[in-house]
């Protein structure tokens, strides 16, 4: 490869996170415009609501995870250094949570959600979304705890930490402000984006499973519409099945973009979002040398 070729490629790819954020927004905008023209209005409205609900749930999970991850991460450090007797049971409990696969834990959380809906404890759709987000964050926040412990351990080895202690700065302030806020924001942002991606995947999967497997037990009208739930609808599944037939017969390909738009759009939003989130996350790693 020539030098000039390499240089311009490198310049183009320098800020991959921003580039992929732009690609994500542009892709979704183009899809939205296409759907506005060719998808029937009720389906389009459902799709918009589902995307919005999934995004809101993702943001809520990130928020809950940061709060829980930060507090648990810092607390575990202080327990290790000041209350070693409590540190063992604390990490023991965390490891037990870690040993439960996310999907199993979240499914149990959804059973509780169903009971709460049946007993009319959770009535508004937003409160149900908050519950879903809380349940998911319970099983993903440990990644942030690990990161926070890793960052504290990294700075603990450096002279900077001891020097600050000698200057009379409180340990809590050094950790929360100097280490985590001032020197780990890029790491935290990277992890938050990863958690957002994991959440979208887990939420779509669990909603799909609940809608497919428990549809006789759970009234879907009670659950907030999400991308996974919408994909599990019979017409969406038929649209997805049509992808297979269009692969075997190219003449059917055209119908994917008009007749089977609902299912294809949902599948595209899920896959495209997961890809873009991964790329944004990788771009951040590259930009900040994480």
């Amino acid at each position, binding site marked *: 490869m020539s030098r000039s070729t390499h240089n311009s*490629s*490198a310049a183009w790819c320098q800020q991959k996170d921003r580039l992929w954020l732009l690609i994500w927004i542009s892709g979704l905008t183009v899809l939205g415009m296409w759907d506005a023209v060719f998808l029937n209005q009720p389906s389009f409205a459902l799709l918009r609501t589902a995307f919005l609900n999934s995004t809101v749930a993702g943001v809520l999970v990130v928020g809950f995870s940061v709060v829980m991850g930060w507090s648990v991460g810092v607390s575990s450090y202080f327990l290790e250094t000041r209350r070693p007797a409590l540190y063992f049971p604390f990490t023991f409990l965390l*490891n037990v949570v870690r040993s439960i696969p996310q999907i199993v834990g979240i499914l149990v959380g959804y059973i509780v959600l169903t009971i709460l809906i049946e007993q009319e404890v959770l009535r508004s759709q937003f409160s149900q979304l908050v519950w879903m987000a809380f349940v998911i964050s319970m099983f993903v926040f440990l990644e942030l705890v690990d990161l926070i412990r890793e960052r504290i351990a990294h700075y603990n080895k450096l002279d900077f930490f001891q020097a600050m202690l000698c200057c009379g700065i409180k340990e809590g302030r050094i950790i929360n402000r100097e280490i985590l806020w001032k020197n780990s924001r890029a790491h935290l942002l990277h992890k938050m984006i990863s958690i957002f991606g994991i959440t979208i995947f887990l939420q779509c999967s669990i909603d799909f*499973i609940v809608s*497919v497997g428990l549809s006789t*037990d759970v009234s879907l009208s009670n659950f907030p519409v999400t991308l996974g739930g919408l994909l599990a609808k019979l017409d969406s599944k038929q649209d997805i099945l049509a992808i*297979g037939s269009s*692969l075997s017969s190219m003449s059917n390909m055209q119908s994917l973009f008009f007749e089977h738009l609902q299912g294809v759009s949902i599948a595209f939003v899920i896959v495209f979002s997961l890809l873009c989130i*991964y790329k944004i996350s990788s771009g951040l790693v590259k930009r900040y040398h994480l």
Partner: protein
Amino acid sequence: MKTKLIEHTLSILLVTCVFLILITFLKREEERRAATSRSSIEPYLQIDSLDFGNPLHTALFKETLTLFHPDSPAQNDSLLRSIEAYRQEQFTNQINKTGGEERGVSPAKLAKLGNMYAQFILVYIVVMILSYRAAQSLAIFRFVRMKQHKGSYFGELYDLVKNRRAKQREPSLSMRAGALFARAILKGFSYAVLFAPAYVIAYSIRSSINTDSYFFMILLGVISNGLLINYANKFFTFLVTEDRKGYVQTAIVKNLSNSYTWGTTDGVSYWALLRPNSLFGSHVFKHIYLNARYQFLTTLKEHASFLITGLIIIEMALNIQGHLGYEMLQNILYKQYDVVVSIILGVFLIVKATDIAVDAWFHWESRKYENKV
């Protein structure tokens, strides 16, 4: 290692005890609930002349109840609803269906679950081995491309088109552009498959392929749900981190090969993608790889949890009958929570067994690094 083993054993014992207590409690609660609901309506069900399937009989029964208990209409309605629910259950309850089993955890149920559990473990081990190797291959391929300073295919295509005037005499220009475009499309398609949830892939090809086979399940387990790409990314990060370390520069100064051209004697052969451990000779990458792999071992624990999540999603979303995930979903549907808890306990034990195996492997590798083996 001893401390870790103690921690794992304690964790298994504690969680098993808690789950067993929960299973017993749920089983008793289920029996109590069934007995209570039956006892309140039992006297009325014994009346031979009364057919609750007949609307006239039901209306007469309701009027009789109102005559006898005029002050408690809600209680009367509740009794009628209980009778109706009981009758409905006679048709919908799994136990009353052909081939139905006893509700809750029973020896027969445990034997059935044990068979499914063994199949699940087998699939899990195969997917674990395949994804572990495939993630390394993918990461090495990406790393070598990075060392070759290659960007995206579309980037290369853009540069090629941009500089076409300078190269217009080159006859193979259009062919190269075509090849780059085809590669970019192929890469895009691969990404779509790698990031697609398993159920999207399975439903999209269900009309032409049997998606319920073991082979397909293993294939989906390895490639879908973003599992492989994210796991490969972890190994790639370790490779890049190792590559930045000082010993790599020292090794290059000491004349170890540092060429990343494919297929040359001092470069990297394509076989290295499949058998990275045995094929780098005096190449500096051998040391980068070994050090990255050492750190990568511990991520297997995290990977195990994601992998099980992926497998359960596949079994549940595709409704693959006779598999553990599907069975769990069915038991949630029939509210047999003691069976659900038993399955969760089984899944927990798989994760713990993986944790112990990975810790033992890491300990053994560490001893090698410390020259104790």
